[in-house]
């Protein structure tokens, strides 16, 4: 993908194919539905949460959820 083609993904966008790194499990659909995914602090499951939903893991009921890591590639100097 060239630099010009690349657009920062937003919720309204229909066809999003990911940032520089395409390895994350998130697909474009997930953005359309307005559902955000979180990681359970207890069982590490991916928890989908809708707007206004109770903050709770559906699998184990834990109430600590973490934000997922960015899907973008991050560059570091090995120094």
């Amino acid at each position, binding site marked *: 993908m060239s630099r010009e083609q690349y657009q920062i993904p937003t919720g309204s966008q229909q066809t999003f194919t990911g940032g*520089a*790194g395409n*390895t*994350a499990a998130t697909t474009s659909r997930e953005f359309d539905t307005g559902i955000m995914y979180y*990681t359970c602090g207890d069982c*590490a499951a991916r928890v989908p949460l809708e707007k206004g939903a109770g903050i709770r893991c559906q699998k184990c009921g834990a109430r600590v959820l973490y934000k997922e*890591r960015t899907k973008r*590639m*991050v*560059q*570091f*100097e*090995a*120094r």
Partner: protein
Amino acid sequence: MPRKQPTEEELERRKIVGVNAETVTDVTSTDFPGNWPGEDYAWDIKKIIRDTKIEFHQNEPAEASFSLIGVDASIANAFRRIMIADIPTIAIEKVFIDNNTSVIQDEVLAHRLGLIPFTGGREGLDNFMRWLPKPKDNEPIESTYFDYNTISLELRVTCTHNPNAAEDEKDPRKLYNHAHVYAKDIVFMPVGRQVKYFAGENAIRPVNPDILIAKLRPGQQIDLSMIMHKGVGSDHAKFSPVATASYRLLPTITILRPILGRDAENFAKCFPQGVIRLEKVTKAEAAREGSGYEGHASELKAVVVNPMLDTVSRECLRHDEFKEKVKLGRERDHFIFNIESTGQWESDAIFLASIAHLKEKARKLEQQVVDMVR
């Protein structure tokens, strides 16, 4: 002024650095023309060829030890400095992290990756790989990345539960797959002519495959690619080809007056094993007048056998019974080098490269001086 030649003993005395209980003496070299009246210390390559000696003590790929004898500290030190700071190696320089859900932070992980020593085919590293040139203004850094200056690597590991693990298993390495991420998990991605130069056993690989990079738990993932460049130790220590490159001066231990019996045993204990040996005073020695051994036949005396093993702890100078009986020192022109390689170079090749580097430096500057005059 008439030329005169000092006696052997005088020359021997001049090259000893004195080591006393609290002080050191005669530290600087004095072998310059005009320093000693009437003596000739002018530069003479024949003298250098005659006096310079090298003796190996150990020569393994990872560690070499040898004595460089007969050169000045300024030359020996130049070699040491060049080995540490100017001999190029390749190391990971940039890390592109797609995903890292491990407990180790991105920047710490990148730093750890940079410090891992890598090796590969010598032919490829020496003759094929070149420096990464600076990009021209307004051009991105990647514009100068080519197969002859950039090496790509990848590290993609996900930790999962091991379904075959025993019920009561406690060891995370058996309980999970990829609980530990090691240097051997890094994959070399050859590009262009690298396929030819770094094929088979010449592949770019970590010197020590079992370096632990990170620990994972099920569900955690490290997913990144890296690039390596050539660099030198003066830029960053990760580029230094040596773990240590150091020299020490050969210690000298001179027993001025005999140390006998109980004293001799205690004297030997002041030094590491193998430095001092206890020998019996022979009848001939005891019979010789003025030797200090009169009437001590078949008693034990202390004899210096291997001063190289001494650490110059100066322990013997702390005891009154050895006062005026022993003199410690170091030989100013005997450098015991010890070179530990990080694995990319053979340890002895690093020293040879440092010699070549100094010569090349001098040659280039000689040309520069000619250009300056013009």
